[in-house]
Structure formats: C-alpha cells, structure tokens
C-alpha cells in the first residue's frame, strides 16, 4: 500500500530523518512508535506532502506521491483544531470539499457519520461551544469523510474519555475491515497491543525495528519462565531452585501461598523437561513463558539503541 524508501530530511543542521524505509501492508494497522522527537511526525508530514523529503521517495500503491493523492489520504494530526467561529455542519462540508468531495456527497457522508456517532444535533452549533472531546469527534469524522484508502492518525485517543476512545477504536477497526489501511502513531502501548498488526520503532531520526508485531514478539521472547510452586518445605524448594536453575525471586499476584520465581530455561532442556523437574518440588500452579509486551520491546530496544550509539 505505502512504501517509503530511504527518506532523509534535515532542518538546517538538525537531522529529523535519516534513511528511513518502511513498508505498510494493505489493510493493516501499522503502529509508528518512538519516543518524542524521534521523527514520527516529520515522516507523517512527508507522507501527507506537507514537507518534501531531502532524499528518498514515497510510493502509494506503487506510484510516487503526487498532489492528487491527498484525496486518498485521511490525516488526523496531533496538533488539531477546527475553525472556532464556524458552524459544525458547514465546517465539515468545507473540509470535505477541500478533499475533493462534491457538496451533496459531503452532506450525505456527514449525515451518515453524525448519525452513527449520535452527534447529529451538533450540526448548527459553533465549534467554540463544543467541549474538547466533542471537537475531537468532529475531527475524527472529518478525517474519514472522504473514504480515504489510507488513514493516518497521530495520537488519536488523546483527549477522549475511555468510552469514546473505545468507540473510536471500534470505528477505526471497522474502517480497516472495510479495506482501509491505517497508520497510527502513538505512545500508548496498550492500544498498540490491542490494534496493531505491524509496527515500526523509531529513535533519534532512525528506524530501529519494524515488522509484524507477533514476529517481533517471537524474536524477543525469552527463555525465562514465571513459576509458582506450592511446596511443603519452602526453604528446601527454594534452595533447589536457586542451585539448579539459578532462579531469581519475584512476586506476582496469586491466590496460593507458594514460592514464586523466574526460572531460566537451561540450554539443553525443553520447557517440558523443565516442567517435569520442577514438578518434583511440589504442585505447580504457574508455569508461564515470559512474552514481552509491546511496552517492554519499546523500552528495551530504545535502551539498546541508546547504548550502541
């Protein structure tokens, strides 16, 4: 759907992007992650043709970006607002027309979305009378009005209460199911976990990691297991665990009174072997492989990246 090939961009002496390449598969939800100042927004602006890259190029459906492409893209920037003194309906029509919709077409679409989000009665209100959350909903509608093939959201959930955030999340997934491709940039790892199937991680103007989220998790999976054993003689069990498996104590929530620890799977063993051996110490209530969350991967790879610089 979207390919970026070794994009570089600098502002004066400051390098905002260095040789960044990305491939966003069709109908995926693509998470663009990275700490503040990593270059995410600059990359998004290049995709939106707000700024031009110094070198490299972007392909949309295999065609280099051209001005006409804006009508296929819906962009909800992080810095977002609406004309304060304009009425909601008028404003939505205006913005849709700028994206190439005819007036009647725009009206029909707006009506559909306003009804769907139950905000039809806002039509004649001025934006300055709306709350921040209400304005955010309108901004969302305006972003998707012209049925774009590519949706780009920069921190879409900031400013929403949990209920509306959920509503918007469902609408985004819905659009994806209907064929849209979604890029979204966020710091909120729980929404990444929940929604994204591909991610790219950026730090200090470079891409440091990208791919399918599950693949990445698999690559980052560890040989560490979280173990909880209910044992008659706790001291003895602990002694054995420490001596034979180099276990480190840890605490997690459990309804049992048990020995809790992290156990590192020895190289020559399979998880089954480990389980067998541990079961001799008592009743095993927990035996879980530690799979990194997106958050862990984020923090870990940023730290690694910083250390290697």
């Amino acid at each position, binding site marked *: 759907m979207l390919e970026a090939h070794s994009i570089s961009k600098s502002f004066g002496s400051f390098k905002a992007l260095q040789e960044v390449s990305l491939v966003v598969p069709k109908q995926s939800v693509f998470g663009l992650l990275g700490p503040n100042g990593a270059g995410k927004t600059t990359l998004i602006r290049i995709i939106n*043709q707000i700024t031009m890259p110094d070198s490299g190029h972007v392909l949309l459906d295999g065609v280099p970006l051209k001005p006409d492409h804006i009508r296929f893209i819906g962009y909800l920037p992080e810095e977002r607002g609406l004309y304060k003194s304009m009425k909601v309906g008028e404003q939505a029509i205006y913005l849709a027309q700028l994206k190439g919709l005819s007036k009647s077409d725009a009206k029909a679409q707006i009506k559909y979305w306003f009804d769907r989000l139950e905000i039809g009665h806002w039509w004649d209100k001025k934006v300055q009378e709306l709350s921040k959350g209400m304005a955010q909903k309108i901004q969302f509608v305006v972003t998707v009005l012209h049925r774009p093939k590519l949706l780009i959201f920069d921190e879409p959930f900031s400013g929403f209460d949990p209920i509306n955030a959920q509503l918007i999340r469902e609408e985004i997934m819905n659009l994806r199911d209907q064929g849209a491709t979604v890029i979204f940039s966020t710091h909120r790892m729980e929404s990444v976990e929940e929604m994204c199937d591909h991610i790219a991680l950026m730090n200090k103007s470079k891409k440091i990691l990208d791919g399918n989220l599950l693949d990445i998790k698999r690559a980052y999976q560890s040989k560490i297991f979280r173990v909880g054993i209910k044992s008659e003689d706790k001291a003895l069990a602990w002694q054995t665990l420490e001596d034979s498996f180099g276990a480190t104590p840890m605490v997690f929530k459990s309804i049992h009174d048990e020995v809790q620890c992290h156990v590192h799977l020895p190289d020559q063993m399979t998880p089954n072997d480990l389980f067998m051996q541990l079961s001799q110490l008592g009743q095993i209530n927990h035996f879980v492989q530690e799979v990194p969350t997106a958050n862990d991967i984020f923090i870990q790879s940023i730290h690694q990246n910083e250390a290697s610089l």
Partner: protein
Amino acid sequence: MNHLGLILVREYLNKIRNKSFIIMTFMSPLLMVGVIGLVTYLSGLNNDNERHIKILDESGYFGHLFEDQDQITFELLQAMDLDQAKGITQAAQDYGLLYIPKVNEISDLSREIYFFSEDSPSLGVMTQIERIVQRQANALAINQAGMDAQAIRNLYFEVRPQLETFKGQETSKLGSGLKLIFGGAAGYLLFMFIIIYGNMIMRSVIEEKTSRIIEVIISSVKPAELLLGKIFGTTLAGITQFAIWVILVGVLGTVMSQVLGVEVPSGTDVAVQQSAALAQSNELPAQILTEIFQLPMTNLVVMFFLFFIGGYLLYASLYAAIGAAVDSETDTQQFMIPIIMPLIIAVYVGVFTVIEDPHGTVSQVFSFIPLTSPVVMLMRIPFGVPLWEQIVSVVLLFTTFIITVWFAAKIYRVGILMYGKKPSYKELLKWLKY
C-alpha cells in the same frame, strides 16, 4: 469548485458574518455622520445668540459705516459722554461698546480707540470691527495726505501667467491643483485601504495557526492557494464594507443635512465630488470643468484601477507573509515598520517631489519601485506619463505581488514546523532554502 474558490467563499462569509465586522460596518458611518452632525449642531448653537454693540463715535467719520449683520447689530449713540455711554451699554446688557474719540491726527487713532465689554470679546467680532475701522482710517489718512484713495486702490492688480504646453494645450495653476487632488485622493484611498484591511488579512492568515487546524488544511490545499484565497476573500469583504460605508454615509449625510439644514461634506470620493461641488459655487466653474475634461481621463481611470488593485494586492501579500511567519498577533510588531515605511515614503515623494517636478529622476525612479509606484505613479499620470513607463510599472507591480505570495507560501509551509518560535529575519531567509 476548485480550492481557491472554496477558500475565497469561506473567508468572505466568515468575515462578513463576524459580529464585530457587522458592528463596525454599521456603526462607523453612524459615528462619523453623528460626530460631524454634533459638531455642526453645537457650533450652530453657539452662534445663535445675537450680539448688540453700541458705538460712540466722537470723530464722526466711522459711525455710519457699521451695518447690521447676521449675528451682530450695531447702534449709534448720539450726544453723550463716555461714562454715560458705558452706563447705558451695561444697563442694556449689550455685548460691548466701541468708543472712537475725536482726534487731531488720523494716525492718533491707532491707539485711541477702545472696546469695552463684560469679558474679553470674541476674536471674530473684533476682526470685523477692526477691518471696518482700518479701511476707513487708511482711506482718510491717504486723502489727508492729498492723494486719491480710490486711484491708489486701482493701481493694485494681480499677475496670473497663462500656462500652455508646447503641444498647445492650455493649462493653469488651477489644473495643477486639480491634478494634485486627483493623485492625492487616489493615493490616500489606497493608503487607507491598506491600513484598514491589511491587518485583517494578516489576522486571517494567523487564524489557522491559533485554531490549530493548519495541518489539516495544509494537507488538503497548497499554501499559495490558501493565502491567495484569504487575500481575495478578505479584500471582497473589505470592498463590501467600504461600499456600505459610502452608501450609508451618503444617505445619513443627506438626512442629516436636511434635518440640520447644513451642508455635510461626505468624506468619500472626495476628489470628484468636491471639485464638482466647487465648480458650482466657485467663480470659475467653467474653467474647472474644462480642466477636468482636459485630464487624460481614460488613461487615468484605467491606471487608477490597475495601480489600486496591484498596490493593494502587493501590500496585502506582504501582510499575509507576516501572518505566515508568526504564530500569534503579538509577534507581528517587529515586521510592521518595514511595511508602513515604503507607504509613507511613497506619500511623501508624491506630495513633495512629484508636485515640484513630476518627471524628475526621483519621481521617475519611485514610480517604478513596486512598493511606491501605486501612489507615486498615480500622482504623476495626470501630468502626462509615457504609456510604456506606465505599462512597465504595472507589470513590475503584479510580478512582485506574485513573487511575494510565493515567498509567503514558502514561509507558511516551513512555519508550521516551528511551533511557538519567534522567527528572526535571518531565519526567514534560511526557511526559503528548505
């Protein structure tokens, strides 16, 4: 509809629906006519009280010369001394008493005449009295010296050279004055338009930034389209407002003058109307009309529109460029002076140099520089400027306008990446390279 049209219409509607804009549109003429009316009314009030002045003329030369006027009546006192006269005047609560004593030498009068009154008399009244006494006293003095006053007066005459160009066109000082009024009015109108609506354009360019909608807009339209749309939309709103002003001031002024029974000059379209009005009341109406018709009318009107539109658009685009460079209105101050300066220089050059020497080097140079040409060239044209000079100047003007918009659009695009930073001139230059 294309983007430019959409933006233009939105800007226009947004402006004219704005409450403060509507209030300004309808209040300004009311205020203007109201103030003029009030001033006229008040000064009328003041003049209403009639003034009675008593005169005691012991010399016998002056008394008969004082004739009653609109607001002043005179009464000649006979056969009494000064103290009596004072008493009568005071008792009658009259405005004052003019006392002219009997003198041997006419020249003694210069310090012997008195005017007695309750408090210090008004300047207007004293000037009138002085003039009457002075004239008569001078005539008397001349006659006394054995000369004929009337004969001397006849010896004074005015010198008025007849002006004619080599092409045989008759001109006159009056014509030069008219040309000046034409050019001056055009320059003044442009100046006013720029000052009033330039700021409006600047604010409208900042609007997207303060409302933070800028990124959404700029991902849909080109900055140049946005800026052009804003300039044209705001200009149309300005023209609408100006038209309403002219109409309202006209109507209100007429009503007001009917009510108060005074002539209220409407402050707009000064040149033509005033000179026409002048023509009716003046002693030389025919001459003025001929002078007006002698001006290169077609040329003047066409060039007026071209230079007015071009000049306005150029300055509007400069204001837009400022708006593009800053985040909020408070940051605009440092950029204002460079805009106002050329405008002021243009008016100065127009008023002082063009009149002295319409085709001198200074006038010529400034009528080509785009920032000053609208004012200076408009003032030069009535004096006759070769067509090629006019065309070159207009082309330069519009080219500069387009370059400025392009420049502003460039700044605008880069400016969005720099939230909350006050740009310096140096940085603006750097932005152009991005």
